[in-house]
């Protein structure tokens, strides 16, 4: 009988303290103005990737900041199948331009938060089934940092529509 008593107590304690829902975070940034000097040397020609999300569509626009601009625009529906296609295309863009790890996202006011998170997931997270990124390691880079870099598709997501 003491054995059953212990089991009952343990069960009660564990059931009360159990976390049945795993909680995670999706980190995003918003633009801000700073008066401190920009210490980073900007490359003369860089790739800019913009993603517009509205109720029915996701529009990806990529272009270089200097000639040749090579502007490309692709439209996707907000269905699960099309979001998967959008994610695959982003992997291809990331592998094509490995130095660009930033995406600016513009979201319409009517888009549901649930839909927003789904698209942000497709932009940021590299799934275990996805092919590995072919990003060359920077000289002298911390291996731990390089590993983290490989687990994100696009690490920096800036919500461009949050601006005065």
């Amino acid at each position, binding site marked *: 009988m003491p054995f059953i008593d212990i089991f009952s107590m343990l069960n009660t304690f564990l059931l009360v303290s159990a976390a049945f829902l795993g*909680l*995670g975070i999706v980190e*995003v*940034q918003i633009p801000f103005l700073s008066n401190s000097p920009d210490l980073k040397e900007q490359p003369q020609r860089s790739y800019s990737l913009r993603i517009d999300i509205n109720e029915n569509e996701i529009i990806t626009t990529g272009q270089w900041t200097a000639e040749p601009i090579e502007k490309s625009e692709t439209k996707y529906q907000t269905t699960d199948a099309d979001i998967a296609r959008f994610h695959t295309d982003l992997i291809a863009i990331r592998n094509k331009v490995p130095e660009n790890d930033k995406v600016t996202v513009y979201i319409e006011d009517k888009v549901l*938060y649930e839909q927003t998170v789904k698209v942000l997931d497709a932009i940021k997270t590299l799934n275990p089934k996805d092919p590995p990124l072919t990003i060359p390691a920077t000289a002298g880079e911390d291996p731990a940092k390089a590993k983290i870099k490989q687990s994100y598709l696009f690490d920096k997501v800036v919500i461009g529509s949050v*601006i005065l």
Partner: protein
Amino acid sequence: MASAGGDSGESLSLNLTPMLDIFSILVTFLLMSYSTDPTNHDVDANLELPDSVTLVNMDEIPSIVVNRKEILINNKSVVVLDNGKVPASDIQQGAVFPVYKALLEIAETNKKAAEVLRNPASDEKKAKPGEITIEMDKKHNFEILRRVMLAGQQAEFITFKLLVAKPGVD
């Protein structure tokens, strides 16, 4: 074996072996999923989090909660939503003004704490712009999030961690 007797004089015996089996399995399952993570958080009862495949675990308790009825900052209600929208009287320069005021207080507190903790020998001259975690109902639209983020931006918070539900407990 436990037994129970009634008025009729008949005795019933209770077989405890299957119950012990169930208990053992339950205890094993619960012990395996038991988390000693100090950042345990109970999600607000008035909201449902969006699902996500993110690999990043929650690392701090959300300061901003936007449930179906109101906006709370550190568990204190600052705005009551009107049909899922921020009332026009609470909006200033596109941002939710009561949220801005509450976040400004948090930013000031954080700055003071950073001043105390800063190493005088360090080269760091200015505190980095803040980070804040938001817990929001999945059925809200982006307009609310935009207005809350704008309030955060005005209070010098530029990194937002959106709290999401992960499909499997790790």
